[in-house]
């Protein structure tokens, strides 16, 4: 009998043998909280092994874990090679384009810092802002042309138009690339990629995501406005209000959790603060880092991953206390995307990525 047929026999028997109802007495089953802690990887040593042995034997707990897994959102699909290559060369270009657009759009706003790293959470915030407040973005773009006409009146109009058009193209390319990637990330994570739903999150009264417009969005709008102005030769004397709104658009680097109200920010490169009221107030989180922190992702209100220089990876699953996650290499990590407290993908400055699904106990080989 060929080996393949024997394998088939074994498979058929396995379906029957494994399906047998082997359930210990009710009291002997592992309680829900212990199973939950085990599934999060919070149990250690003998306790974890005991739970694993029990679940392997007990059909009730096994079925419970199966249901539990079915309710777990899927992990993100890793980026394909071409896409990573695409982004690798696009990063410096996009940065330069954004900087140029900001410089053109906000000549008087030199004090505002630029966000150092693009993260998924940040990107979500940006897209929210771009989609939920398009009229507002257009309004914010108002000062772009006036600013050029006023503060930079010495520059010839033709040159101004050329710069604006170049910035427009580059920023548009960046926005397109960025948005397509984020959309696919979100879809992979099971997040609802419905603009209206996302826009409704940060709606109205409070400041949240809608009011924190992105440099890309505002920059693109500004550049578009500048382009239009260069064609129409619209003179400009813009009021302070839109300019203030534009300044507000460049709020400090914040990572917005998927609930829309919880936010994180990196302060002074080594400290982390958290806001649970959409940025109205901030409290410091417990993190001990001697390395410069640069990227973060917050897949939920209580989970946040932060990466930084020299292989620094931190995660919190309770929203306040960050723990250092072991990382196999000493490289400067610049960005992270995560789906929960266990699964995250970190990327280094040179474009390599590592993935963990067990909160850093193991990392997939660099790609």
């Amino acid at each position, binding site marked *: 009998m060929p080996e393949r047929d024997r*394998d088939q026999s074994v498979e058929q028997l*396995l379906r029957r043998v494994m*399906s047998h109802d082997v359930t210990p007495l009710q009291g002997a089953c592992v309680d829900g909280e*212990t199973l939950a802690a085990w599934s999060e990887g919070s149990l250690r040593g003998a306790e974890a092994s005991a739970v694993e042995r029990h679940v392997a034997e007990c059909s009730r707990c096994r079925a419970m874990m199966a249901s539990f897994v079915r309710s777990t959102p899927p992990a993100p699909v890793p980026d394909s090679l071409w896409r990573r290559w695409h982004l690798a060369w696009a990063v410096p270009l996009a940065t330069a384009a954004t900087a140029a657009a900001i410089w053109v759009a906000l000549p008087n706003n030199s004090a505002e810092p630029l966000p150092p790293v693009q993260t998924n959470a940040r990107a979500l915030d940006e897209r929210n802002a771009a989609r939920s407040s398009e009229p507002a973005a257009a309004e914010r773009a108002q000062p772009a042309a006036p600013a050029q006409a006023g503060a930079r009146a010495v520059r010839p109009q033709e040159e101004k138009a050329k710069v604006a058009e170049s910035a427009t193209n580059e920023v548009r390319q960046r926005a397109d690339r960025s948005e397509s990637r984020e959309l696919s990330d979100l879809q992979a994570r099971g997040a609802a990629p419905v603009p209206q739903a996302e826009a409704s999150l940060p709606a109205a009264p409070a400041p949240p995501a809608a009011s924190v417009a992105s440099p890309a969005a505002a920059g693109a709008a500004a550049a578009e406005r500048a382009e239009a102005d260069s064609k129409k030769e619209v003179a400009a004397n813009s009021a302070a209000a839109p300019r203030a709104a534009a300044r507000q658009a460049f709020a400090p680097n914040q990572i917005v959790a998927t609930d829309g109200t919880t936010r994180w920010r990196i302060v002074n490169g080594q400290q982390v603060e958290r806001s649970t009221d959409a940025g109205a107030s901030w409290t410091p989180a417990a993190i001990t880092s001697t390395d410069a922190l640069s990227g973060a992702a917050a897949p939920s209100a209580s989970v946040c991953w932060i990466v930084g220089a020299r292989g620094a990876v931190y995660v919190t699953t309770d929203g306040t206390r960050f723990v250092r996650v072991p990382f196999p290499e000493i490289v400067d990590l610049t960005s992270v995307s995560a789906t929960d407290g266990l699964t995250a993908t970190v990327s280094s400055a040179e474009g390599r990525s590592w993935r963990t699904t067990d909160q850093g106990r193991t990392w997939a080989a660099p790609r």
Partner: protein
Amino acid sequence: MSSWRPSDSAVTHLYQQSRADRWSVPVAVFATALERSARKAFVTPPEPRDLERLLGSLHLEDLALACACASGHEGAWEHFVREHRPVLYRAADAIDPTGGSREIADSLYGELFGLVERSGERRSLLEYFHGRSSLSTWLRAVLAQRHVDRVRSTRRFEPMPEEEPTTPARSEEQPQSRISEYIQLMRRAVTGAVSRLPAKDRLRLAYYYAEDLTLAQIGRALGEHEATVSRNLAKARREIRTDVERHLREQEHMNPSQIDECFEAVVEDVGSLDVSDLLGAGSDQPDSSGSPGGRRKDSRDKRSKERPEGASA
């Protein structure tokens, strides 16, 4: 000195970390919650170092929120409703897309709120949360447990599924009694081989063959990549086959021809099911379709699409 109760200084420190003051949780209440967590984790009073390690690993903010909600703090409940209630209902929908688990989620939410009286006193289910996992994960785990218990209890009262058509062509030259004997022999051999595998391998096999999880889902459950799950399943199956062959050869003293007949007997028996299969397989499967008969069909459909490496067609 061994004790379940943390020192006052530790309580103060943990209280600050938990931000329990947001919900005006009294320090004494929080200290009691910490002690309860310690009593649950340790059978005997732990050494201070072990206690410190445990308390440091707790999800303190969630524990504080649970304390506040259990005591009826309005702000805490608003936070819970905003942050955690959606998790509960999303999980219910994911477990049973037909909406069957929504009822369980409703009931669970009622218990969390403290609608159910125990011994004449309204108590919230949140009092049973000890902070060892995050609150959201705990909610999903409790929901999954209740879902499974309900499925298991309902299954026992459902009619037996109709069997799919059996495959014909059972070998005429082999008497029925010998085929049955071979099948029983093979079942014992496979059961023994499985029991000798490490727990993780057994769990992986059970997730795949008994629970019908996909490779990706098993990967999420065990913290492995999908491809690794596939490789490990194939490896476990190879080990089982080798173990069964050795058992038949060395323990049952069968020659190669008889061993072949044993394996063939199982293949030819593909369509038949015995009562123990039905009772065993049908009683613990949280089948979202609600159709016990449909499960096997679904299972086979899935297998045809997704097979671990080296699996036979």
